[in-house]
């Protein structure tokens, strides 16, 4: 994962000269011409995108959404696995056409990329070990928490608890491993990811708990390069169709519903808006 960063940094530098003054055709036309939609996913964030241990394929809620978009465009879907911190740069550099990577839609990011309709809404929370004695956010003051590099988790927890110490890792599972070993008192992540990891613990889950307070509410959306209005219209169109014909609700049930580890009883959102609150 570090290599990705280094390679990316080198690439940016090596091609910086070529970047200037280079205009190109519409991205939607390019995608249709090459017959392939390249979608950046995490592959480490169950159930949004993760590697199915049986088939070794990347599957998940966001992968199914990406499939629907590719189908709508009439092209093949190609998934590309990305580190959390690499998502926006990879999109900006054109290495992926679309992000379906547990991406929070917020105002800061609107300055650099565009977003589809909101595809999921989750809160961000903190998972702690019970024996740490921590039961509320303010008790994290001066303590060390772990999380993922390059997401909204770090800024959100620093905003909620200014004196908290934060150590970040390339993937969620690595950060979670650090928490399990006691290298931090809390693990900050999207609630759905925490619930999933919590469920995966099995009997050991009794030693952990998720603090009830939300650090923030995170609307997740697909990410697009800025100004690709034709592509955005198609992507949003595909999502609207999923909502209208009930597929979106089915997908929610398939990955988050009562029969899954996460056991969400109801869906608290609809895929119908690309607006977020500041």
């Amino acid at each position: 994962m570090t290599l990705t960063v280094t390679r990316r940094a080198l690439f940016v530098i090596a091609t910086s000269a070529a970047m200037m003054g280079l205009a190109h055709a519409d991205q939607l036309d390019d995608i249709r011409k090459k017959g392939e939609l390249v979608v950046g996913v995490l592959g480490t964030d169950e159930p949004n995108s993760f590697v199915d241990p049986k088939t070794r394929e990347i599957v998940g809620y966001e992968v199914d959404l990406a499939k629907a978009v590719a189908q709508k465009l009439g092209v093949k879907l190609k998934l590309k696995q990305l580190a959390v911190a690499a998502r926006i740069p990879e999109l900006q550099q054109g290495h992926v056409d679309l992000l379906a990577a547990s991406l929070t839609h917020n105002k800061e990011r609107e300055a650099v990329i565009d977003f589809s309709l909101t595809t999921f809404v989750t809160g961000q929370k903190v998972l702690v070990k019970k024996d740490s004695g921590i039961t509320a956010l303010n008790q994290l003051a001066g303590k060390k928490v772990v999380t993922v590099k390059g997401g909204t988790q770090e800024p959100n927890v620093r905003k909620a608890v200014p004196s908290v110490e934060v150590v970040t890792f390339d993937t969620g599972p690595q950060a979670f491993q650090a928490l399990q070993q006691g290298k931090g008192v809390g693990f900050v992540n999207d609630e759905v990811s925490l619930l999933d990891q919590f469920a995966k613990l099995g009997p050991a889950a009794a030693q952990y708990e998720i603090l009830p307070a939300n650090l923030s509410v995170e609307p997740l959306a697909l990410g697009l390069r800025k100004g690709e209005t034709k592509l955005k219209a198609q992507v949003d169109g595909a999502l609207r169709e999923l909502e209208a014909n009930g597929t979106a609700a089915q997908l929610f049930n398939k990955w988050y519903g009562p029969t899954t580890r996460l056991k969400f009883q109801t869906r608290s959102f609809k895929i119908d808006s690309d607006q977020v609150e500041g």
Partner: protein
Amino acid sequence: MFFPDADVMPELDFTPLLHGQFLDWLAAGVRLSLTLTVLALVLALPLATGVALARLAPSAPFAPLRWLATFFIEAVRNVPLLAHMLFWYFAVPELLPDGLKARLYAGNVEAAAALAALVVYTAAYMAEDIRSGLRSVPAGQWEASRALGLGFIAALRWVVLPQALRATVPPLISQTLNLWKNTSIATVVGAAELMYQAQRVESASFRGFETFALATATYLGVSLLITALGALYQHRFPARPAAH
């Protein structure tokens, strides 16, 4: 298409990075990178010397010592540094007794694990450089000193090491250069060195190009400084072939 649109690329602008919190983060990263380099160098040198001497020890009573040193060097050099980092962070501390572990985890375990990985990794490479420096001193020098009645240690201290030093310092400086660059791998275990902080600034500022350009310039600047020191040493103390 490979390149982003010109109209979508923001203009290059370093000003947001050169003051306020972003600069503080980057400066903290540079400080930790430099600290890791200096500490790892200071700790790796004696370890490397010990390992090199163990590999060169007379085989009669010291054969196991030689095997151990050879095993250490091969085992360490043939595993990527990234794996060393993860091993020292995720695996080694778990083997410690609980009390010690709790104390370690309460402190900066990220930097400590990174330092351990860098020391061991650098020492293995430096040991080989020191060994070849010692071997560059002709066997006649050893034999002559032993004939004069000097023991192993005394021959090493007064005859061989002074000659070997000149041949050894240039490759050691080059290893120091590698060490400086290798500190960037510590980002995978959450040690807040320059690469870690650069990534943090990138995520917060969306100025990836500028951030990594600054980080690159810093790595390059310090590297050139180390190279210049090496050149200066070689100019001032050129390696002289020992008399036969």
